[in-house]
């Protein structure tokens, strides 16, 4: 009953709308499209301005000062570009950048190799592949902090499962497998956990890439009697390459920012062997309270990620358009 009324009203409104001049009709029918567009978009933009952009501008301003957040009443002196100059010449910062590079490089290499292989195998579509794919995905859904913390236990030299398994297969006494306290092994300890966690992500994107290759290309290759090996190198790999590159981009950005897992697993130790950039930043900003200095470092990191990502995206687009 009410529905009929409503539709009658609607009809009437429509009839009225048709006979009214356009600008008036729009006002009568509620918000104009432009009004709706801004009403819908504005809240998001406002939130991002307040929580992302305003703080960023604040950080840029602080980066030119000697401000310390634990002494809010101390006099703030403008130091110009001093913070930036000191960061770029600081050997500890460069060491942290090298540690980050080592971490990013090896996690990407391992995750891409293993992830692509897994995707390629799953694409054989054996029985139950969907179920096993879901199981493989589980690690990437878990909290890097909470699980990273638990890996400390797995890595314990005497009682940990990891050391036990490794010593079982290699014969090295388990007390010698000091994954977290050995300067040589600790950088690999974080690479292993990150690879365990994020290989599934790379696998999924590679799988999307493999499935996007149309059948007829393989059919044509069959007609031409191209060997499997040949098909892999001249069809599968090149056509999945944009997807692989995307996965590399995302993992690269994420691992450049890496904080939670490393902070809980090693806290940057032993010494500063696993101190990736984010850990250095945290130490400077929230332990030494050098807010101005660390803001400058944060800006440099942000510009670096942003710049590298942009160059990479350009390269990616070139591969795509090929």
């Amino acid at each position, binding site marked *: 009953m009410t529905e009929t009324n409503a539709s009658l009203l609607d009809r009437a409104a429509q009839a009225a709308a048709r006979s009214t001049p356009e600008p008036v009709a729009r006002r009568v029918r509620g918000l104009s499209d432009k009004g709706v567009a801004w009403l819908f978009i504005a809240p998001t933009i406002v939130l991002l301005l307040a929580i992302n952009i305003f703080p960023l501008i*604040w950080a840029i301003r602080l980066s030119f000062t000697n401000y310390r957040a634990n002494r809010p009443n101390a006099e703030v002196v403008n130091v110009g570009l001093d913070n930036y100059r000191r960061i770029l010449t600081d050997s500890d910062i460069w060491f942290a950048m090298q540690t980050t590079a080592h971490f990013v490089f090896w996690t990407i290499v391992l995750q891409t190799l293993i992830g692509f292989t897994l995707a390629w195998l*799953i694409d054989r579509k054996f029985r139950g592949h969907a179920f096993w794919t879901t199981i493989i995905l589980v690690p990437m859904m878990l909290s890097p902090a909470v699980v990273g913390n638990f890996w400390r236990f797995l890595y314990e030299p005497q009682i940990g499962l990891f050391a036990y398994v490794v010593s079982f297969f290699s014969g090295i006494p388990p007390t010698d497998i000091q994954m977290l306290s050995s300067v040589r092994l600790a950088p690999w300890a974080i690479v292993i956990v990150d690879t365990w966690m994020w290989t599934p992500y790379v696998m999924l994107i590679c799988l999307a890439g493999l499935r996007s290759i149309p059948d007829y290309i393989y059919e044509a290759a069959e007609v031409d009697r191209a060997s499997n090996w040949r098909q892999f190198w001249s069809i599968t790999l090149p056509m999945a390459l944009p997807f692989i590159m995307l996965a590399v981009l995302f993992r690269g950005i994420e691992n450049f920012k890496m904080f939670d897992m490393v902070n809980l697993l090693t806290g940057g130790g032993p010494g500063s062997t696993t101190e990736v950039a984010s850990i250095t930043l945290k130490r400077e900003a929230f332990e030494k309270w050098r807010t101005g200095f660390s803001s400058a470092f944060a800006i440099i990191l942000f510009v670096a990620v942003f710049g590298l990502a942009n160059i990479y995206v350009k390269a990616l687009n070139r591969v795509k358009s090929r």
Partner: protein
Amino acid sequence: MSAAAHSVVEPTPASKRIAGAIIILYAVVSMVPLFWIIATSFKTPPDSIAYPPKLVFTPSIEGYCNLFTTRTRQTAEYIASLPPPENFCDEVTRKRNMVIAGPSNFLPRFVNSLIIAFGSTFCAVFLGTLAAYGFSRFKVPLADDLLFFILSTRMMPPIAVAIPIYLMYRELGLSDTALGMILLYTAVNVSLAVWLLKGFIDEIPREYEEAAMIDGYTRLQAFRKVVLPQATTGIAATAIFCLIFAWNEYAFAALLTSGTAQTAPPFIPTIIGEGGQDWPAVAAGTTIFLVPILVFTILLRKQLLRGITFGAVRK
């Protein structure tokens, strides 16, 4: 992502079997740490640090008792003078010459996690849906720049964002409040939400709303009654992603909360017993914390798969 696979070059049964065997082996090995977390949560402290690591043990809920309580050491005489233990937790605690002093902070931290994760997910998906519709359907000036700006906010290292946020929240009195954390997580998640949802809404034909508008619906009504129902799957997929992020987030939580609004991820690593971490209790906390995510992953795997590949490939 096209669902159709290249079935022409059907892999041979043998290659399928080998592929299956390798995948299953990988899946099983990658599940070992998770299995070990759950197993450890049911061990007694001595069992948990036994060498060689114990695969077979008598299950005990001592870890869960220790997770939810704080305990103090007492003399044997004092314990002997107490009335008989009321429950299992009382009993095991006394066996270790301790008595339960009170509830631990785990439950409030877990509740904080729930409030902040669900609150921020709701806000992010709500704002994200509106903005995504706006970008999808209207000619917004500088749309590409705005969308890129929205996405680029995710490239900042969390610690870099945390420095000014820390100062700003201190000024505004938002430090260590659930509201502050919800606002922050909403801002982080909304960029992902806009990107994912714009893709989903782009897929809904405009003709549907246009037809509805010809029938007399206003733009807002058409959005509510035509577009929203069509976008439910996409909204659900996006919500899962936002929820997982907010649930798992550690960096902001560790730096910006310390007490009343602290979430579970920064709390769990601080669970210590006598002489270091109380691993069964940590494992118990970790297990309880991971269960919702495991359930989500298994139940909603289709949406998850779609969201991950879709979101990634679009960006």
